[in-house]
């Protein structure tokens, strides 16, 4: 699959430079191999230099509404804490068996007393023990440069200092689970990239 990717990367990555020298922005369009836009794809850039930015303290919310996690995919920097406000009248039992973050929030209503801190990079799959259909992903990254694609599969990450980065794209329906597509880039100006992902159609969660 590596060869496959390399073959595509030559074709797919199209660089576009803009005027600002200090900080650039990277616009990534994520599609499947057929060119269909993929939303909820996580795109992030990891610097080859040691992370000097430090851990994030951003607080995020993953609410439960109509027996669904919302949003489906949440990207946070390591050290971020996430709240799980329950907007439903039924109670939920949120859990994760993922090695990146194992936890459970036993049956509760409203907002749990303390948020969950994700301090380890990796994919955390969230489920509700009493509602099997409930599914959400918390993608924990070790970089401040990240984002996820909108409905048209586009994500623009701004204010990225010049330098060498590895651009990684992850999607929950990747055929190669938990193996983000990577691309090294030498960022000197704004860039625009198209990334095509091999997607397991069956794993796609419709309408999200």
């Amino acid at each position, binding site marked *: 699959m590596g060869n496959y990717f390399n073959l595509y990367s030559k074709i797919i990555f199209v660089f576009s430079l803009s005027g600002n020298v200090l900080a650039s922005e990277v616009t990534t369009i994520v599609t499947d191999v057929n060119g269909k836009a993929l939303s909820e794809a996580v795109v992030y850039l990891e610097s080859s230099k040691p992370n000097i930015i430090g851990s994030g303290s951003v607080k995020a919310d993953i609410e439960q509404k109509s027996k669904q996690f919302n949003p489906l995919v949440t990207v946070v920097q390591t050290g971020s804490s996430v709240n799980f406000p329950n907007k439903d009248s039924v109670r939920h039992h949120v859990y994760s*068996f993922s090695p990146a973050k194992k936890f459970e929030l036993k049956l509760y209503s409203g907002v749990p007393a303390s948020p969950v801190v994700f301090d380890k990079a990796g994919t955390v799959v969230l489920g509700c023990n009493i509602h*099997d259909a409930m599914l959400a992903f918390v993608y924990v990254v070790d970089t401040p440069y990240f984002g996820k694609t909108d409905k048209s599969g586009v994500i623009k990450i701004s204010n990225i200092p010049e330098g060498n980065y590895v651009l990684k794209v992850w999607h929950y329906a990747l055929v190669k689970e938990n193996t983000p597509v990577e691309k090294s880039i030498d960022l000197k100006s704004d860039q625009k990239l198209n990334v095509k992902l091999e997607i397991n159609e069956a794993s796609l969660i419709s309408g999200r």
Partner: protein
Amino acid sequence: MNSMKFKSIKSQIIFVFLTLIILIQLAGLIPLGISINKNAHASVQRDLQVGEKVFLNILDNNTASLQQGAKILAADYGFRDSISTNDDETIISALNNHQSRINADIAIFYSTQGEKTIISGNVSVVDANTAVKKIINNYNSNNKALDLEIFNGYPYQVVLVPIKAPLTIGWVLMGFKIDNSLAIKLNKLSNLDVTFIQKNSAGGWSAIASTFSGSRLIGLESSFRKIYVPSIQNSDMQVGDKTYGSRIISLSSGNSLVVVLQRSISEATAQFETLRISLFLLTIFGLFIFTLVTVYFSKVISLPISKLSEIAKEFEQGNYELVVKTDREDEIGKLSNAFNSMREAIAIREQKVTRLAYWDEIADLPNRYAFMIKLSKLIEISEEKNEKFTIFVFNLDRFKQINNIMGREFGDALLKNIGELINGSIRKSSDFSARVGADEFAVLLKGHGQKEGLAIVEGILKLFEKPILIGEQRIDISAGVGVASYPEHGKTDEQLLQNAETALASSKKRKISIVEYNPSLDANQQENLMLASELKFAIENSQLSLFLQPKINISTKQAYSTEALVRWTHPEKGLIFPDQFIPFAEQSGLIQKISLWMIEEACKVISVFKEQGLNLSIAVNISAKDLIDHDLPKKIFELLNEYQLSSESISLEITESSIMDDPSRAEATLNSLAEMGIKIAIDDFGTGYSSLAYLKRLPVHKLKIDKSFVMNMENDESDRKIVKSTIDLGHNLNLEVVAEGIENIGSWLLLESMGCDYGQGYFMGKPMPVKDFSPWLKSWNDRVDSWDDIAA
């Protein structure tokens, strides 16, 4: 039906009707049997279809149950927790726990992370991994189709459920072993026999679970191997001694495992068997009733017929007393009445026939047959009671002549008269008389010995002394009688009558009126019979010889002729006189040969005499039999020609009685002979009963007076008178008279004085052989020369 022969109408009727009813019943029972069979098959098919549904349902239920169990396990938080913490011990206990909840035979956990496999149940890791990976590849959460996996050679019905947290982190596989308990469970629900048959690695089929066991299972396997092709669904299979309707369902896509659902057809027909048996019993009962009715009716028809045939058998035995009683008006009644009238008619006719068989209509007496029956019955009785009885037979003298001369009607009337006379003089209560021959009567005197019998016989003979009057004709009769007594003279009917007849023959021969039987008579008769048989041989072998007795002309004293007499020189008995064999020669017909022989011999002798210069004629005796032979004149004529003799050389002598046997034919023969110029003499004249009127008509030339008159004429005046009147009578009729039996000169002289023409007797010469004749003639001539000396 034509080829079958029935001994009775009854069995015929019974056979026909019973065959009919059996055919009708079969016509019902056979289609019934067929439809029962059809129904049974249909019912088995229905059962099998239902069974298949039940079976599939059970499998579905199993699947559902497995799925549920596996899902519960897969969703269990604690279980997932232990997976995430790699707590294998907890994992296996959870597997055990959920496995036992649904009674699954295996439960397997397969982790997608690190490919870990944890097993509860008797399955190897390799097998488990292989199976799980295979199922994961084909996995479709919506597909609830039966999944079969082989573990340790046994098929398991399995389900695989993903463990989600909430993404799939592993799989739970749970399964039921397909074994006898499944078969039994299905059997309990569907009442079918269930067998799972699997294709083994070698490609052969073997049963892995079944409600059958032992030899039945082996039988099923072999039947299955014979009939199985993948497309087959329904089939009849032989298992042991039963036929099973079978449905074969393939359980795996590769046709490597099938289930055979079976139902015994015979068991299915069993419910109809009761119906069939009751119908069969009904048929038997119906047949029984029908047989009774048929037997009754056939008896009504055939019994009278059997009765009639029994009566007909009685008729056959001569019993006509049975009357067929009937008041029926149908054909059998008519037949019975016809039998009755037939019976009467036959009885009357038989009486007539019987009477004719036992009765002599002419004499109006019982006949010989009736006499024999009576005789044999009397012998039986006498033997028991030690009694005596006597029979006698008597024979009318001259009856043949009487019949010939007076006519048959007269003869019949005479017989009837005699019959009355005899019957009138016996005791009607005990004695019995019958006509046993043409002119022969027999009388049976019961309880009389010889002496008393003789007295009665003599009494009857006395009655005959009076002339019998028939019409206007009087007739004198006489009879010979033979007597035989029981038990001295014979102990059987045949022997008694034969002996009486022997005695009768002797009486006739000896001219004695009553002769009692004695064994010497038999001896005589037997000797005679023997001679008769030897006589023929004698003629052909020259044992006979010709003797000559000279005849002398009384007035000239010259020998002018000879009488030819026959002698038989028997090789053992010596010389036999004609008296002893001529009667039998007459009876047997040999007499004609003898007569011709004598004539020829005579011709030879005359020829010889002629050569010697002697001119003598020879007289030959001929019999009644010769007289009725029309060819006699011709034969004599031929002989005379042969020896070149004149007709005067031969003369013939005949007795009165020989003419009377058949007068008209005798007359014709004599006329022919006379025309040839042959002279004819009446021999033994005076002893017979010739009518002179009749004699006169015949061409006779001489009378020979019987020697019985001549021999005593010297001493007996009446004989003398007879001789004298006979000589006169002859002369008056222009006949020459010859006297026989001249034994002395006295007789000679008397005859000479009476004018008798010729003489013959010992005085002149005995019968002598031919060779002696010439010497005799010489000596006779010498005697004539010295006649005067003799006469003196």
